[in-house]
């Protein structure tokens, strides 16, 4: 099963292609069914992945609030550059529908 999946980093980025904003926790919830067995699907690692994507100008920070534990929650949203890059380079890779 997992051999049909695209790499986790692609899946994280492509999650944003629906134009919605997501926090690290929400990305994990969305990818859990397919990528639950991945060791790097943790809050710390996904947060780092999103921060990297933001520094690489693929994502923008869109809003901030506190989560249920009183910790800062940053949500991100894709921008035009990110959409263009993802379309152009990894647009054709998709996961099987569950």
């Amino acid at each position, binding site marked *: 099963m*997992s*051999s049909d*999946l*695209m*790499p*986790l*980093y*692609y899946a994280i*980025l492509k999650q944003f292609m629906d134009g919605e904003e997501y926090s690290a926790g929400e990305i994990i919830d969305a990818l859990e069914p397919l990528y639950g067995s*991945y*060791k*790097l699907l943790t809050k710390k690692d996904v947060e*780092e*992945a999103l*921060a*990297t*994507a933001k*520094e*690489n*100008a*693929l994502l923008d920070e869109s809003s*901030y*609030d*506190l989560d249920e534990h009183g*910790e*800062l929650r*940053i949500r991100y949203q894709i921008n035009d550059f990110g959409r263009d*890059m*993802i379309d152009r*380079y*990894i647009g054709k*890779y998709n996961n099987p529908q569950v």
Partner: protein
Amino acid sequence: MDLDERVTELRTQRRRKYFVRGIAFATASGICYGMYTGFITLAETQGVWGEWFAGGEWGGGNPALSAFVISFVLAALAAGLNDFFSGIWSLLACAKNRQLGDFWKTIKTKPGLIMMICAAVGGPIATTAYIIGLNSATAAGNPGVIVPIAALNCAIGAVLGRVFFKQELNAHKIVGILICLFAAAVIGGTSFAAMGPEALLGCLFAFIAAFGWGFEGCVAGFGTILIDYRIGIAIRQTTAGILELFVMFPLLACVSGGVGSIPELAGAALTDPALLIFVVSGFFAMPAFSFWYKGNSMCGAALGMACNGMYAFWGPFFIWLIMGALNIGGMAADYPPLSPVQWLGALIMVAGIFCIAVDPSRLFRKASEEATHV
């Protein structure tokens, strides 16, 4: 305290924490660059490598190698061993994160292919040229001098970005490039005066390395932001190591006059204890790249590149520390520190790289903005 204030405070805290850690990582990456350079230089003085470079008989009766083999073929072999081992180290890191499946899948996608093309330019061409430069400067008396020349890759990357991708070249970048060129001219010029034409040959090859890495930096920056950085590094190092060992080294060996020299040299290098030092240099080459990316993600690519570029200073520093001051390898007298003017040149180079990467007026504005926002 209301909710908005609490969120603002947490954001400020987090940004500051990221910023400081990012600078720490990017600086550590520059230090690792310096250490990997130092250990390669050390490895090349040990065992059979020492005999090869001494230019006499080696391995108990084999005839001395030709100047071409010593300059070029051994450089490809050394670069290949270093990159291959660092590829293995980075694959082990991926295995620890259970990323090997993703590694394999990424290779078969477009961003993975771009990464491999970049590695083909940055590895066999640039890294080999870097080692050629190091070696001929070693022969001339001081390997440290060429490292700051190779660090021109930031300046060249900025110019290539302008030519290929129509990226902006602001005033601060142009000033930075001029500062770097000036520093490189000072270091190269004083080496020439003190050490003779061989040092200049070293500087020339270091310049080719800077060109290759500059190209790699500006293309890779475009194609690789879609790959997890740990996987990206593993692709880069394994591709570079394999191409250097299995294409560049045999190719150069054939040119120099014999297929027979391939197994002879490779066999001697692989069975010599100095191989372990290449394992160590490869170990430092891995975080040199991986901390660079991690640092970029935390303090911004521009500042990250600047901190990393401090290897212009750390390279000669660690060559001098490991082989000169600590006298590991027992050849201290052959590894003098740079002259005061050259150390100054290396520091000016670091300042120039900072100017290219970071707009000083903007950095200043950002800092004062953050201060008033708190």
